[in-house]
């Protein structure tokens, strides 16, 4: 009877999670999705509390209180710009839980482990372990605790694969002899080491893909836990998490022109794009000041703003929204064109703009943005670089060739707000800056946009 109640509660929880994801498909229902997720989690926890083997509650309460003490401040005070770091950190927490449970399960069941359970426990600690350290490394790079540049050395792939092989061979050994506790410890150590090695060669610009990938791994370690504990709700929730991370990783890698095959193993076999210096280019560019910029914007019917991470770094998003308001008062229609990698994690730029009170129905994705750009009077590029480089369409030799870009060059006039002519992360110059319809407004994004707002008000 009690077992049945547990299963029914788990079924209801699993269903709630599915609805939670379903409602995330539209901004109008997304908050309902959060509620569904919360209900699902409460049901799953109640279901677990009524399990007959769960009899001791003291330490459960202690753990939950500690979790609330960590989770609530992280949720309430983390700035939106730091969302990628926060996400990486929470992947580490989730994976740590999976790894610790895997280790505890092994300790409890070690003498009587059947082969299947041994395999899934092995997979659980392998995926969990590498996600813990991989996510902590990603966190450290994003938080700039360690340098974000990729670290590569000769034989890196061989070293990485060797460490991974140790873990896999260890799991096979344990399937044959589950009592080899030293081998189990070695698997955990190898997994943890592999996580560090995996992220070392990955640079800051590739972080969106990595975060999504680690999301997927954390989900899959929960699935493995579900198999080990014969727990369906773990399998369902883990599968949703795993597929979500996987899809986001694919979206990101495509948007960044990265090979799909490479994403499963992060930087494995990836040709690291060396930040070669942009060829000395002394072609003239047209630069102007904010008065020139305001003159170009005055009278424009459709203005498309292309924000990049540089805008967020300069904390210019509120000024940019003011500019959009000023343009609308001036009779222009304004849209924000958001490239999938315009930020440090999937969808990051949308959140940053939403925080600055930009309505979400003015944010458009790549495809729609390019239709708009083709008939826009002015495009304003703020802190974005490689995602606007026409070389992606025209120069087969370029590192960005084939990358989906925002066709900013097709707009009537282009205003580029940028600190200097320095190249973006791909390390190449941007043809856009030399085009006849482009005007460069050099300076800090926040300052330049601020002057545009006032000059526009004076002129109009």
């Amino acid at each position, binding site marked *: 009877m009690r077992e049945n109640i547990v299963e029914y509660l788990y079924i209801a929880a699993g269903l709630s999670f599915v609805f939670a994801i379903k409602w995330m498909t539209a901004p109008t229902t997304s908050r309902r999705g959060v509620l569904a997720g919360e209900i699902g*989690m409460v049901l799953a926890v109640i279901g677990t509390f009524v399990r007959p083997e769960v009899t001791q509650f003291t330490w459960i309460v202690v753990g939950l209180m500690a979790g609330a003490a960590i989770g609530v401040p992280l949720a309430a005070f983390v700035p939106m710009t730091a969302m990628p770091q926060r996400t990486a950190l929470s992947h580490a927490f989730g994976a740590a839980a999976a790894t610790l449970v895997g280790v*505890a399960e092994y300790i409890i069941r070690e003498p009587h482990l059947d082969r299947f359970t041994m395999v899934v426990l092995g997979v659980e600690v392998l995926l969990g372990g590498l996600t813990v350290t991989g996510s902590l490394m990603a966190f450290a790079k994003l938080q700039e605790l360690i340098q974000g540049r990729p670290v590569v050395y000769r034989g890196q792939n061989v070293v990485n694969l060797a460490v991974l092989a140790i873990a896999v061979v260890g799991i096979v050994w344990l399937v044959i002899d589950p009592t080899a506790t030293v081998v189990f410890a070695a698997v955990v150590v190898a997994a943890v080491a592999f996580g560090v090695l995996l992220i070392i060669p990955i640079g800051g610009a590739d972080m969106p893909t990595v975060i999504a990938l680690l999301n997927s791994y954390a989900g899959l370690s929960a699935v493995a836990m579900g198999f080990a504990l014969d727990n369906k709700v773990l399998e369902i929730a*883990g599968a*949703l998490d795993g597929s979500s991370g996987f899809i986001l990783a694919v979206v990101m890698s495509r948007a960044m022109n990265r090979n799909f095959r490479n994403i499963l193993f992060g930087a494995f076999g990836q040709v690291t794009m060396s930040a070669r210096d942009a060829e000395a280019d002394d072609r003239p560019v047209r630069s102007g000041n904010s008065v020139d910029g305001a003159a170009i914007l005055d009278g424009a019917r459709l203005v498309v703003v292309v924000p990049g991470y540089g805008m967020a770094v300069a904390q210019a998003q509120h000024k940019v929204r003011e500019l959009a308001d000023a343009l609308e008062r001036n009779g222009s229609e304004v849209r924000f064109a958001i490239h999938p990698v315009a930020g440090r994690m999937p969808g990051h730029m949308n959140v940053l703009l939403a925080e600055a009170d930009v309505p979400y129905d003015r944010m458009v994705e790549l495809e729609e943005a390019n239709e708009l750009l083709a008939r826009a009077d002015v495009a304003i590029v703020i802190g974005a670089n490689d995602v606007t480089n026409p070389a992606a369409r025209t120069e087969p030799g370029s590192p960005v060739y084939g990358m989906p870009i925002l066709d900013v060059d097709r707009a009537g006039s282009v205003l580029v707000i940028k600190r200097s002519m320095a190249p973006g992360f791909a390390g190449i110059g941007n043809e856009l800056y030399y085009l006849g319809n482009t005007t460069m407004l050099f300076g800090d994004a926040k300052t330049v946009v601020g002057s545009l707002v006032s000059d526009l008000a004076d002129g109009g």
Partner: protein
Amino acid sequence: MNIETGLYVFLLASFIGFELIRRVPQLLHTPLMSLTNAISGIALVGSIVIVGSSQSVTTTVLGTIAIAASSSNVIGGFLLTDRMLRMFRKRS
């Protein structure tokens, strides 16, 4: 232990996951990741079983840390997702 049932559940849930998540617009990708993070705090369930069944001091210590780690994701994840989604507004 029923391996086949587990595989059914996993494969069907993954399929549903793929089909639904493909439809989530880029606009909501960050909240989506935050939400799935909260949901992957489901590791809490396994952690509670370990601690609640009180097998040994070692497993209780490991389990309690696991509860703290996973519940911080659950509690923080849902709160944060809602905080983000509250910011998404249509043109007034």
